[in-house]
């Protein structure tokens, strides 16, 4: 299956702390993407990391990719209440975009 599996299922932190979410997948990939979904709303594309990249930054986001372990991590630094959302990794080995169950992040003000 091309689906990613996010871990933990849920994460609760204080505002200002860092949040780390992990993703594991089973197939070989061209790239891996992270999306965010605020409660019941549409998804927002956050970042794409290619299979030949090991780390990528975008603002307060830092993504790592280890293709030998078939895993990725998303780090959100200095979290804010507005970061409260579900986060999904999408390993792209084929054309379909398949979403897993996600990590539900709750940032307490």
């Amino acid at each position, binding site marked *: 299956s091309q689906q990613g599996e996010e871990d933990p299922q849920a994460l609760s932190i204080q505002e200002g702390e860092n949040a780390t979410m992990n993703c594991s997948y089973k197939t070989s990939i061209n790239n891996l993407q992270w999306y965010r979904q605020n409660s019941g709303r549409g998804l927002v594309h956050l970042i794409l990391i290619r299979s030949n990249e090991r780390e990528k930054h975008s603002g307060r986001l830092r993504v790592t990719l280890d293709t030998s372990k078939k895993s990725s991590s998303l780090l959100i630094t200095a979290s804010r209440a507005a970061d409260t959302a579900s986060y999904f990794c999408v390993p792209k080995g084929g054309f379909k975009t398949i979403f897993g169950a*996600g990590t539900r992040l709750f940032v307490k003000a």
Partner: protein
Amino acid sequence: EPEVTQTPSHQVTQMGQEVILRCVPISNHLYFYWYRQILGQKVEFLVSFYNNEISEKSEIFDDQFSVERPDGSNFTLKIRSTKLEDSAMYFCASSLVGGLTDTQYFGPGTRLTVL
């Protein structure tokens, strides 16, 4: 910033009725998608559409579903005879590039309630 829009935001229908969910993708995008999310569950891929034809569909997308791009701006999902289990949020998305490196932009969704 350009965005994907969807109408209506909430649709209530009786079981067996036909519904059409509408989407206006970002204007220069070429690839279009529909997803659904049953309350509390995963976002599920339904169909992708490019060059006026379906490029991929999931097993959920059976004969009761159809998609159309009737003009240069709208992208619609029709459900022919709705069932109770069709109640869900339906999300439209579009991307400039398709395939492996697509970055999909999602609309806010239409909540479909089938009674």
